[in-house]
């Protein structure tokens, strides 16, 4: 609370000096000095407190258009951290979770990682959410040896940024490839249109889907675009309707999908709808209601509900009880990512000498080795194995919505360039 006290004092100083009409130059100088002193003051105030805690962080949009995605993910991580602390933390030390807002912008993400790295000295980071910000902060994480596991950034180049950079969401290449093959071979479609949004998630998936689908002999009859935040897609849908496709691929976030489904119905576009893991956000079932039924999408493999330790179902129930809403697939990834990081820290802790344990001087390269060596980890988002470059190898589920519930149609994976059905 001392920090608030300081803040109060500073604000009082500021308002008082504004009212006192001293000469302009002197005042201006005072303001500049104040701006420069403030960080120093807070540094002094901040450095006094050295908590005995193990810190992990999150960077993603918590305000702005995409705020809801960040919120869902941080809620998942909070559950993971709570569970871990309930079991005594790591070696008896509490785990502290520090979420930071990036507003979806790389420069804010840079400021956030700067703070988390240099002030808080986090061991691991769940983030970024968007590919743009993830690519921006990856070099920093690599340099500081912070384990970075992104739950949602799908850009191909991300994991190449370093050994400490991982992701537990299947990259565009993986998800789109499996789905394109599924649509072509299993569904037998040859004429598909795409309506995607100009953001890195949607565009990446669309491009990869297109190249795989065409490589397998299909035709993309039309590609229409929209902008993030657009609500009206009638123009694009009218054009697509005229092309008479067998299916429409809409690999977008739920807000746009809801609008597209509704407006397609209004315009009389009654074609098959296909989507991607963005559709796994249960919000779509509320927003689009019955219109969501019948959409086929690729997403995280859903566990067999009859399974004895139905991990995912248990987690979803816990999440809903605690937060009043259901998690989306990215939140599941975030939960697993957090647990993997904490397991890695635990592994390094176990190997540390007693002196190091006390001083919380842990070997980060041991943590990296732990995560890199993960094979067949059963998380709530599916079975996780990391490839040498840090990408996750996961089975891809093909799901649909029925009666406002998700249902899994099949599970697939690519083996030697061929589509293989797993379940």
């Amino acid at each position, binding site marked *: 609370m001392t*920090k*608030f006290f*300081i*803040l109060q004092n500073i604000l009082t100083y500021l*308002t008082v000096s*504004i*009212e006192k009409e001293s000469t*302009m*130059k002197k*005042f*201006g100088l005072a*303001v*500049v000095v104040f*701006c*420069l002193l*403030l*960080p*120093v003051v*807070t*540094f002094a105030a*901040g*450095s006094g407190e050295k908590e005995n805690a193990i810190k992990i*962080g999150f960077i993603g949009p*918590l*305000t702005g258009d995409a*705020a809801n995605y960040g919120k869902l993910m941080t809620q998942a991580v909070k559950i993971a951290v709570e569970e871990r602390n309930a079991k005594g933390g790591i070696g008896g030390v509490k785990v502290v*979770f*520090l*979420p*930071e*807002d990036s507003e*979806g*912008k*790389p*420069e804010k993400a*840079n*400021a*956030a990682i*700067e*703070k988390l*790295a*240099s*002030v808080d000295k986090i061991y691991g980071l769940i983030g970024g959410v968007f*590919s*743009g910000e993830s*690519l*921006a902060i990856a*070099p*920093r994480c690599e*340099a500081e040896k912070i384990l970075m596991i992104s739950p949602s950034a799908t*850009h191909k*180049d991300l994991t190449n940024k370093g050994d400490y950079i991982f992701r537990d969401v299947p990259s565009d290449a993986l998800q789109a490839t499996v789905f394109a093959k599924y649509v072509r071979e299993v569904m037998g479609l040859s004429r598909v249109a795409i309506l995607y949004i*100009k*953001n*890195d998630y949607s*565009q*990446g998936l669309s491009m990869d889907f297109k190249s795989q689908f065409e490589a397998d002999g299909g035709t993309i009859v039309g590609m229409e*675009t929209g*902008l993030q935040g657009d609500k009206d897609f009638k123009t694009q849908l009218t054009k697509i309707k005229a092309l008479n496709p067998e299916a429409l691929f809409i690999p977008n976030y739920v807000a746009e999908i809801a609008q597209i489904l509704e407006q397609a119905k209004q315009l009389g576009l009654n074609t098959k709808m296909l989507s991607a893991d963005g559709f796994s956000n249960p919000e779509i079932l509320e927003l689009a209601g019955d219109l969501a039924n019948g959409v086929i999408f690729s997403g995280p493999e859903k566990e067999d509900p009859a399974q004895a330790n139905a991990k995912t179902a248990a987690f979803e129930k816990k999440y809903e009880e605690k937060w009043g809403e259901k998690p989306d697939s990215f939140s599941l990834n975030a939960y697993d990512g957090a647990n993997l990081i904490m397991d890695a820290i635990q592994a390094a802790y176990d190997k540390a000498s007693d002196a190091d344990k006390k001083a919380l001087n842990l070997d980060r390269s041991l943590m990296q080795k732990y995560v890199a060596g993960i094979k067949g980890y059963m998380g709530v988002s599916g079975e996780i194995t990391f490839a040498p470059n840090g990408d996750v190898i996961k089975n891809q589920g093909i799901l649909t919505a029925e009666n406002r519930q998700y249902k899994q149609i099949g599970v697939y994976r690519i083996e030697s360039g061929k589509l293989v059905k797993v379940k």
Partner: protein
Amino acid sequence: MISFIQLLTVYIGIYAILSLSLNLIVGYTGMLSLCHAAFFAIGSYATAILMLKIGMGFWLSTLCAGVISAVLGALIGLPTLRLKGDYLAIATLGFGEIVKNVILNWDSLTNGPMGINGVPMPKFFGFSLNPLVKWQYIILVWVFVAITYFILRRIIHSRLGRALAAIREDEIAAFAMGIDTFKYKVISFAIGAFFAGVAGSLWTVFNQSVTPMTYDFMLSMMILCMVVLGGLGNHFAALVGAAIIQVAGEFPRLLGFSSVIPAQFKQIIFGLILVFMMIFKPEGILGKEKAKPPKGVPAVREGGVQ
């Protein structure tokens, strides 16, 4: 914490260049421009593309970035600067949105929403400037700030500067005096765009990546806020404004409670700071109150001659 402050110092420096250059347009020439982020974007992308796809060195690409921005500024200025007041503002607003829209859609040049990343580090006599080593960038950026400041000062005290001030005070009178107001307005706009482009170049190499999301309308507004908050028409004030806005924007992170309070609080505090600053000191921290001159006495220029 030191590292974080260093990062902020670099950001404040880059925003200071933006603020100084916008000050020329808004504060000195009296044109309300709402598209400064667009010139920033053009400069950023120009450097990213030149350095990555052509392999140009940093210093040359910075110059090119500035020139490209200036040329585009002049081109945009030619049609729009005939408009006055709020209509000019709207036209510039439109232009800003157009630039962002084009960047987002011109995939072959700009990679669209994916942005361009992996920009190489600038070299200084064979010595690579690594963005992770902050103090190098603090020096680099603030040298540019100093250069910008002094160049703009020279401009203000020149014939060009006096013409701009005349245009600001009363465009019709200036025109009646024989000043080619249109020509000078375009020049002012282009110079402002030039420095914004240079700032963009610095931004690119420091962040080593560019994405379209950064250059939205809100950014143009923020730069405008920096200029107004400090006090219009006063170069030192522009610096002050940049510092205040940046620090205010990062308040919670600096004081360490960013992870504790909901992120929305930070934005609310920022908004409230804006409102209260305007209510209590509308002419800006270092601005002078606009005095009504008695008849026959020459009017006091806002900001004075610095």
